[in-house]
C-alpha cells in the first residue's frame, strides 16, 4: 500500500502540468560541448525547466592530487580545461609558487625569462581557446564555415605549442618555478629567433582575420537574431552565480584579474579589457548571449596586443627554471586565482609541509557559470538552450574535473 502511494506521489511530482514533456538532451550531443545532460521539461517548445546533470567526465582530479607530489599534479590540470591547458598549468603553478614564496626560510623567485615565456604562450592559448569557442558557437547556431576557419587558425597555434613542448593539447609545459626545458630554446639562438618570427608571422596573418570573422559571424543577421536579447544575465545574477571572465564582462562588470589583481608580469603590458554594453542600434542587450560572445572576439585582439609587446621587447636572457631542489611548500594554505580564458580559475591548496598536498580544490569557472543555466533558460525556446550553452563557453573536462 505504501509503495503505491509513493509511486503515485512520484507521478504527481513529475507531471505538474498536463502537457509537459520531458526530454533528455545529451549526454552525447555536439552542441553540449562535451558530455552534459540536460533534463528538459517542455511545454511545446517552451522550456519550463532545464536541469543540468553533470559528472559524466568526473575523473577524481582532487582525489588523485592527494596522492601525488606537486609537480606530478600538473599533467592532471592539463586535463581539466583541455582547450586551454597552458592556462590551467599556470594557474596551478601560480598557487604553489605563492605558497612557496610564503616560506621565509627559502629564497624563491621565478626567472624573468620564464615569466615572459609564460605570458607569451598563455596569451596564444587564450586565442586558441577563444577561436574554438567562436568556431563551435557558429556551428551550434547553424553556420558551418566559421568552424572550419577557426580550426584552420587554431591548428597553426597548436603547431606553435608543439614546438615548445612536444604536445598539441595536454602540454605539461609550465612547471613550478618556471617552464619546461624539454625542447630547449637557447637565449639568442637561431631557434629562438625562428620561433618568435613564426609567432609574428601568425599574428600578422591572424589579426586582420578577426575582422573577417566579425563580418562573417558577429554581424550576420541570422546569428544576431538567434543570440541578441536572448538569456540576459544581469550584473547581480552574474556575481551571485560566480560567473567570471568573459561571462562577467559580458554582463557589464569591468573586471579582469590580469589587471585588477596583477600576477606575473601583466602589469608591464598595455591592453584594454573589453566590457559589454547596450548597443540599441544593433539590438544587443547588455548581458545577452551575443554580448558574451563578442567579448571573446574582442579579447583575441587584446591578446594579440600583449604578444606583440613581448615580441617587440624580445625574450630576456637567463634560465627558465628557478633554482630549487624539491617542491616542498611550508605548512599552510592558499587560494590563488588567475584569469583563464573561461574566467577565474582558482586553486585552493592545503599543505602540511610534506611533498604531497593534503587537499587540492580546483575552482573551475565553467562549473560556476553552468549553474546559472537553469535560471537563464527558464521560459525560453529549446533552440535557445543551445545558444546559451555556447555563449557561456563550457568545457566539461573542467566542470566535472
Amino acid at each position, binding site marked *: 500500500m505504501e509503495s503505491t502511494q509513493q509511486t503515485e506521489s512520484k507521478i504527481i511530482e513529475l507531471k505538474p502540468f498536463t502537457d509537459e514533456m520531458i526530454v533528455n538532451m545529451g549526454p552525447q550531443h555536439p552542441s553540449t560541448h562535451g558530455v552534459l545532460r540536460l533534463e528538459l521539461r517542455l511545454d511545446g517548445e517552451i522550456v519550463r525547466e532545464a536541469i543540468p546533470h*553533470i559528472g559524466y567526465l568526473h575523473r577524481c582530479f582532487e582525489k588523485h592530487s592527494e596522492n601525488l607530489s606537486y609537480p606530478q599534479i600538473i599533467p592532471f590540470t592539463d586535463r581539466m580545461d583541455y582547450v586551454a591547458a597552458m592556462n590551467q598549468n599556470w594557474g596551478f603553478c601560480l598557487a604553489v609558487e605563492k605558497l612557496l614564496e*610564503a616560506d621565509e626560510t627559502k629564497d624563491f623567485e621565478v626567472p624573468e625569462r620564464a615569466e615572459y615565456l609564460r605570458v607569451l604562450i598563455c596569451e596564444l592559448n587564450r586565442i586558441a581557446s577563444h577561436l574554438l569557442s567562436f568556431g563551435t558557437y557558429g556551428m551550434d547556431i547553424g553556420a558551418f564555415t566559421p568552424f572550419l576557419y577557426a580550426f584552420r587558425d587554431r591548428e597553426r597555434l597548436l603547431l606553435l605549442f608543439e614546438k615548445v613542448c612536444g604536445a598539441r593539447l595536454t602540454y605539461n609545459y609550465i612547471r613550478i618555478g618556471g617552464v619546461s626545458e624539454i625542447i630547449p630554446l637557447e637565449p639568442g639562438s637561431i631557434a629562438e629567433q625562428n620561433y618568435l618570427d613564426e609567432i609574428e608571422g601568425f599574428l600578422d596573418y591572424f589579426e586582420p582575420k578577426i575582422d573577417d570573422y566579425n563580418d562573417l559571424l558577429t554581424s550576420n543577421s541570422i546569428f544576431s537574431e538567434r543570440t541578441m536579447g536572448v538569456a540576459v544575465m544581469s550584473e547581480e545574477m552574474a556575481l*551571485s*552565480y*560566480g560567473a567570471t571572465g568573459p561571462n562577467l564582462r559580458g554582463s557589464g562588470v569591468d573586471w579582469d584579474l590580469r589587471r585588477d589583481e596583477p600576477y606575473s608580469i601583466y602589469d608591464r603590458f598595455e591592453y584594454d579589457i573589453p566590457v559589454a554594453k547596450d548597443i540599441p542600434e544593433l539590438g544587443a542587450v547588455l548581458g545577452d548571449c551575443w554580448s558574451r560572445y563578442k567579448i571573446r572576439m574582442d579579447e583575441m585582439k587584446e591578446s594579440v596586443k600583449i604578444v606583440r609587446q613581448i615580441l617587440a621587447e624580445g625574450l630576456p636572457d637567463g634560465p627558465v627554471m628557478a633554482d630549487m631542489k624539491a617542491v616542498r611548500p*611550508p605548512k599552510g594554505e592558499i587560494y590563488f586565482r588567475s584569469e583563464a580564458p573561461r574566467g*577565474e580559475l582558482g586553486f585552493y591548496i592545503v599543505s602540511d609541509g610534506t611533498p604531497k598536498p593534503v*587537499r587540492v580544490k580546483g575552482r573551475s569557472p565553467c*562549473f560556476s557559470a553552468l549553474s546559472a543555466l537553469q535560471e537563464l533558460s527558464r521560459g525560453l525556446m529549446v533552440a535557445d538552450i543551445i545558444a546559451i550553452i555556447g555563449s557561456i563557453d563550457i568545457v566539461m573536462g573542467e566542470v*566535472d574535473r
Partner: protein
Amino acid sequence: MNPEEIYKTLSDKFGGAILGYDTELAGDPNIQIAPTAIADVCQFLAETDTLAFDSLMCLSGIDLGVKEEDLSIVYHLYGMQHRHTVVLKTSVPKTDAHLPTVSHIWKTADWHEREAYDLYGILFEGHTDLRRILLPDDWEGYPLRKDYQEPDFYRGMRVPY
C-alpha cells in the same frame, strides 16, 4: 578592510560564535566560525554596506587525515565594491556533519555545497536540492574522506584496475 579588521567587526557583532583568527600558517589567514552561525555571519558579510561581500569565490570541504575527528569547510569571499577578500573556516564532526546552507545568499553556493555533500558527506541544512552532483546517485560513500575505501564493484563493473 583587511581580514584583521573584518575579524574585529565580526567579533563585536557575533561574540562567541567567532572562535578565532588564524595567522600562524603560511598563506591566507582565516577567521574561524562556529558552524551554527555560518549562515548569519555570511548574511551579515554580504549585506553590510561597508563589507559587501557579493561573491563567493570558492567553497571547499577539507579532511585533514584519518585521525582527525572533524571536517572543515572553507569559504573564500570577495567583495567587488571594496575589493577585499576574507577566508572563513568552520568545522563539523565527521560523525554528524551538518551546518546551515549559504545558498540563499550566493547562488553559486548551490552547486558548491552539492559538491561538498557529494564528496565529503556534509549536509547543508536548508539547501533546496541537496543531491549528488559529480558521482552517480547510487554511489556509496564519500570519496574525498581520507578513510574512504573504494568499492570492489559498481553495478557489476570492477572499480580498482
